[in-house]
């Protein structure tokens, strides 16, 4: 820059709106206005999903977004796609049923750390090992936000919340290590504070054929002023090493071992038959005819 007196170029809302409309991603958003707190990472995620769908050219009518209970509950209402707002912790079984009923649908699951790893923890290993062809976007802010600030399975040690007033003493889970050991066929991590990278990762996760798990780090701007803040997370995150081999499970685990320095990118990916493929194989083995799942008119 030549001089300190120069002002930055002004941004006019009208022009910005035109630019956003021009991208075409708005057609993936519904008219309902999000109800999250200003500054919440879910706004990045909503934009990320819309942009990723736009990038991949997925039809709204062929997409189902499944949510459970938590701040992600209402996510489907803000998107222009079929939606199923289900029960606390039960997103993965519902999504599995939807996908098995109609392979042609793109099924995206959204949920938080409490929904996924506390009440819903029993379903994750099975969705992963069976390689259900769905995308699981897990939004980790280390706290229960919708119920106004209680400790979660990913809260760090020493974190004070309304239900851990004398410090959290439960060792937090390491979700990436769990998903890698369950053999999820695509495992990645992104950060709500890096929205463009987040969008790319969501697109990759959706494009992956099989069970894809994207761990999205985000602050809870309302109930966490000390732990996973934009400042702390922004300083902690790093890129995966340029030479990281995403086909190497051991290397992926090594990268996931240290949660205090979270790496962003694709940890692991592999191609293997999906649950739908396995079911069709069973049908053929039984002498049945695999039903062509025609597009519903």
């Amino acid at each position, binding site marked *: 820059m030549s001089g300190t007196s120069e002002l930055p170029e002004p941004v006019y809302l009208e022009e910005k709106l035109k630019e956003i409309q021009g991208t075409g991603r708005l057609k993936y958003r519904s008219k*309902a206005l999000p109800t999250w707190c200003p500054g919440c990472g879910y706004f990045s995620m909503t934009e990320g999903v819309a942009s990723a769908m736009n990038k991949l050219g997925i039809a*709204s*009518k*062929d*997409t*189902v*977004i*499944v949510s459970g209970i938590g701040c992600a*509950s*209402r996510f*489907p*209402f803000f998107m*222009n*796609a*079929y*939606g*199923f*707002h*289900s*029960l606390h912790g*039960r997103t*993965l*079984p*519902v*999504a*599995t*049923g*939807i*996908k*098995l*009923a*109609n392979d*042609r*649908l793109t099924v995206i699951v959204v949920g938080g750390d409490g929904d996924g790893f506390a009440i819903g923890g*029993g*379903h994750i*290993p*099975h969705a992963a090992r069976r390689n259900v062809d769905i995308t699981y976007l897990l939004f980790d802010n280390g706290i229960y936000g919708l119920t106004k600030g209680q400790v979660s399975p990913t809260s760090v040690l020493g974190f004070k919340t309304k239900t851990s007033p004398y410090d959290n003493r439960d060792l937090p889970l390491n979700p990436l290590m769990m998903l890698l050991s369950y053999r999820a066929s695509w495992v990645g991590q992104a950060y709500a504070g890096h929205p463009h990278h987040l969008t790319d990762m969501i697109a990759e996760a959706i494009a992956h054929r099989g069970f894809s798990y994207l761990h999205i780090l985000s602050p809870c701007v309302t109930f966490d002023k000390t732990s996973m803040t934009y400042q702390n997370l922004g300083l902690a995150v790093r890129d995966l090493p340029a030479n990281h081999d995403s086909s190497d499970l051991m290397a992926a685990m090594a990268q996931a071992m240290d949660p205090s320095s979270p790496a962003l990118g694709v940890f692991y990916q592999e191609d293997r038959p999906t*649950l739908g493929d396995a*079911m069709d194989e*069973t*049908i053929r*083995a*039984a*002498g*049945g*005819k*695999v*039903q062509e799942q025609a*597009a*519903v*008119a």
Partner: protein
Amino acid sequence: MRPITNTDIQIAVCGSAGDGTIATGDILNQAMARAGYRVIAFDVYPAEIRGFGECIACTRITSEQVYSLKQQSDVLVSLNDAHAIAHVPEVRDYGAIIYDDAPITTLKEGAHISGHIKPGQLPYGLPMREISERATSAGKSRNMVALGFVAGLYGLPREAFHQTIAAKFKGKAAAITEGNVRAFDAGYEEGAATFQLDTVRLGAPIESGTGAIVISGNRAIVRGCLDAKVGTFFGYPITPATTILEMLAAQLPRQGGRVLQTEDEIAAIGATIGAGYAGVRAATATSGPGLALMTEMMGLGVMAEVPCVIFVSQRGGPSTGMPTKTEQSDLNLAVYGGSGDAPRIVLAPTNVEGCYKCAGKAFELAEKYQTPVIVLLDLYLSNRLEAVTLPVKSPFAPNLAKGISTRDRAGDYARFALTDDYISPRALPGQEGGIHTVTGLEHTEAGRPKDTPEVHTKMTEKRHKKLASAVRHPELTIAKRFGDAGKVDVGILAWGSTFGEALEAMLEARREGIRCAAMKVVMLSPLPVEVIRSFCDDCREILVPELNYQGQFANLVTAATARAVHRLNRVSGRPMHVEDIVIEIRRLGGGTRQIAAA
């Protein structure tokens, strides 16, 4: 000896787990059905896989339609005296007890069954192990020797047994069939050469070539699912529903369907609801403890108006209870279970043929009314075997869904629109112009979350009122009256497996001159109140026999009709005794007879 035309023989085979008791009963059932007799059978098996669990296979062979097993058997075959001794009193006077009279070790006094046979019962001892060893050079075919002996003694059709044995071991090594046939024949010769002392007689069969097969309640459920063209099935093993999952795992893929054994019952119902939402016929099967886990998801099905079918086979409860014993104590859970005002459809078949019909009809109802449907069985009905004739062509409607119209697609589609019949047009994922989100939150007609008094009142009403017409669903028996028409002294209201015993008891009481009638109620929710009320109006006294302590069905009836009823409750883990019901009918019906006599 005077010729016998009417057949009614009940044979109980009792052994220890691993003796081949259940297999013996199975061959007996299939062979007698093959020969043109009516068969109704029930096996009692232990929770232990091997070890010292008691098994009983009980078969009633008749030439006329009967509805339950008899309290006392005509013949008891002991494959294991330690278990069978306790069942000696269950054999009628002049009935037969058949046992191994050459036990492998010297038994202590009182350990052999021959010391427990009552005067009037007729013993037949034969060296089962020795005969088996002579016939097959192994002692393990004792069960087939015993079965052959029974067949030879009573002149049961030998050829039908040969065919059944061959069919049972089809696909296995030929030597297995041959060995079993040799053991059967050796026993048959022994039986045929034995002078018959008892009064058990075989009459002529009803007719042959009826196409009847002997199947269990669970197998009938499976046949119903297959004929209703179920697309996906999700299950988690639990006695006594496991065999539904097992049979469908083998058979559904043959017609292109998908079966998944999930990680738990919550996942099973979750996936069922997911698949139902996506537009295929979906079902799961469980027992009481599993249903308890499923109730939250069932509530979601009610709220989000998603079709799904849940087969529930009850067992003794609460908690783990008695996994291999029967009970009817999950009615409350099926009809009321879960949070909130959550109306659902509950069907309780009363016999094996009813299991087939209710299974198929459940898919029609779920689809039409966009709601969870429970088909409620119990262990006794799940495992009971009956000779039935099923239709060759599926009688079930392939699609009763109310889809979206061109007008829905053009305008602002409202998934939960209020219509005349309270059933809203349902769009499926993938359909153009039908995009919507379903939710467990209270919502507007458009499906948007909203909790105002007006919305909650209106939508709660919608979810209840849409089910009202289910009692008129075509070709579905929701309740049926048997016995005397018009005013009666005693009316029996029964449901589920117990109805068979209730019907037998009613018929017996009529033979004794008591004016009585029995009604089976198949649809437990919504309850066909009008039909029940008009039945009650005809009855001076009403008796409700059921296999639970609280009188759960009696409570349902009383709440709906404000009529006081007499309750007959048993929690023995066994089917109800016909005689127990008859005693109650006599007691209640006695009043008028005394008046008439005076």
